[in-house]
């Protein structure tokens, strides 16, 4: 049985890994041609930086013992992590290291949609190291750490009974809040007044397809076993994505008589975001509710964001922040006892609300502090200079142009 769970978790981990390239294309298609490599690289380089941070100290600080608020340095460099399966088919801890790593990789990549087309790439590398260490790792510890013992130690959010099956708070609300904060601090893009059209809609849909595919690992893997819970998570994940995608295109049709590819993709991702915390505790009918709410809320959130001066370029706050908040609360609303996982729904709602507020506060404040610091440190700074932005970040920071034709180009 442990072998079956390992088999599934190896695949689930690989699926979540693929979400980061998927996200890269989802975002990369939405920006202008001159910034596509930059946008792709924000995600890809997270595969590089966060993978290393995670095995060196990230996992240790998040998941090896400690108190309610933070772990320890005991497992630096993954020292002492077991490759042996536990009782009852529990997968080896090393498997959890890997699976959790994939979540840490994608979370800051999600943020990048907010400051795409203008954030300085070298500073971003520093941001990745710092943000993972002092924002992501503590929240992951709060929500998911437990030593599993009766009366033992666990993260404080875990302790109050909040349920975040697959990362609604840790990943999505966290990223969404960091995103809106970062967008505000980095400032608006130059010359966006006429509205920017996505430069490559097929890439957006490719990314959405890979995200949808990978999200089965994200959610159905979060029970760490190949069992009925995983099957349920798979089913509700798909259903919520489908419903929210449809809500978006129907809303667009009402408004403008068209149904856009970007709209369907955005809606589907919003549904995936919202179902994430709920996927361990709602049934298929509940997931329709989660998806409906996710579609409507994020659609309105995008429209309202357009009224702000904050240039959250790819709507990370609306989709991941608001979608994640809705998901956290909807978990309380739609959770069912039937799967033998959750009982008291009302307590769950309040616990999740507290978890949400804590995540918003911590992520918001810490992200502001980090970015302020990076802004003033000599040699860093948050933003491309005018000329770099005008020429496009691809040429300015990466020394490349995305598409080169034969002859003229």
């Amino acid at each position, binding site marked *: 049985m442990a072998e079956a769970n390992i088999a599934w978790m190896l695949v689930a981990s690989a699926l979540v890994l693929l979400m980061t390239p998927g996200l890269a294309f989802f975002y990369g298609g939405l920006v202008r041609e001159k910034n596509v490599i930059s946008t792709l690289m924000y995600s890809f380089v997270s595969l590089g930086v966060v993978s290393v941070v995670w095995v060196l100290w990230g996992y240790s600080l998040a998941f090896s013992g400690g108190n309610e608020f933070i772990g320890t340095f005991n497992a630096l460099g993954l020292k002492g992590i077991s490759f042996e399966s536990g009782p009852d088919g529990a997968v080896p801890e090393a498997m959890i290291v890997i699976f959790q790593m994939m979540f840490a990789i994608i979370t800051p990549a999600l943020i990048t949609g907010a400051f795409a087309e203008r954030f300085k790439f070298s500073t971003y590398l520093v941001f990745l190291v710092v943000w993972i260490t002092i924002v992501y790792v503590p929240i992951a510890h709060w929500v998911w750490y437990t030593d599993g013992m009766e009366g033992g130690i666990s993260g404080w959010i875990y302790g109050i009974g909040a349920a975040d099956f697959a990362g609604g708070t840790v990943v999505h609300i966290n990223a969404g809040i960091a995103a809106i904060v970062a967008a505000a601090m980095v400032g608006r893009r130059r010359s966006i007044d006429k509205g*920017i*059209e996505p430069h490559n809609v097929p890439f957006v849909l490719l990314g959405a397809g890979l995200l949808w595919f990978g999200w089965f690992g994200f959610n159905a893997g979060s029970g760490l076993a190949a069992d009925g819970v995983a099957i349920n998570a798979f089913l509700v994940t798909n259903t919520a994505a489908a419903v929210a995608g449809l809500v*978006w295109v129907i809303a*667009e049709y009402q408004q403008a008589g068209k149904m*856009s590819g970007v709209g369907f993709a*955005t809606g589907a991702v919003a549904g995936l975001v919202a179902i994430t915390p709920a996927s361990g505790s709602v049934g298929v009918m509940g997931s329709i509710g989660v998806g409906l709410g996710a579609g409507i809320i994020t659609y309105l959130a995008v429209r309202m964001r357009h009224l702000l001066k904050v240039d959250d370029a790819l*709507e990370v706050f609306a989709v991941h922040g608001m979608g994640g908040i809705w998901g956290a609360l909807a978990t309380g609303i739609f959770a069912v006892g039937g799967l033998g996982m959750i009982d008291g729904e009302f307590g769950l709602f309040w616990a999740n609300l507290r978890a949400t507020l804590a995540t918003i506060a911590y992520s918001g404040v810490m992200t502001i502090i980090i970015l302020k610091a990076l802004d003033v440190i000599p040699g860093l700074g948050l933003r491309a200079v005018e000329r770099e932005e005008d020429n496009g970040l691809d040429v300015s920071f990466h020394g490349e142009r995305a598409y080169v034709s034969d002859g003229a180009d």
Partner: protein
Amino acid sequence: MIKIEAIVRPERIGAVVDAMDAAGCGGYNYVNVTGRGKQQGIEVFTGRGASTTRRMALPKVLITTVIEDSKKEAVIAAIVAAARSGDEGNIGDGKIFVSHVAEVVRVRTGERDGDAL
């Protein structure tokens, strides 16, 4: 010699070059451009679907051909006939510009002017 530059709808390009061939053009070249005239543009989404904008400039094709002066009216007539959409024509069907060319050289042979066409 004169140069004829015709801006037409992308979907008409096949019909137009056939008509030009028939009218005796020896060669031509064309390129996609974005253009705006009296046509009203089209609605497109911008900013992730939640708002639309009117894109004023639309895709067009610019065809260029250099011909002897004598063929001018025949070629213009051919282009107009082939490029017009519907019976009455529609806004956005295109424009034709005629200008003078002083010299032509064929790269392969170095021939000039009339011989080079």
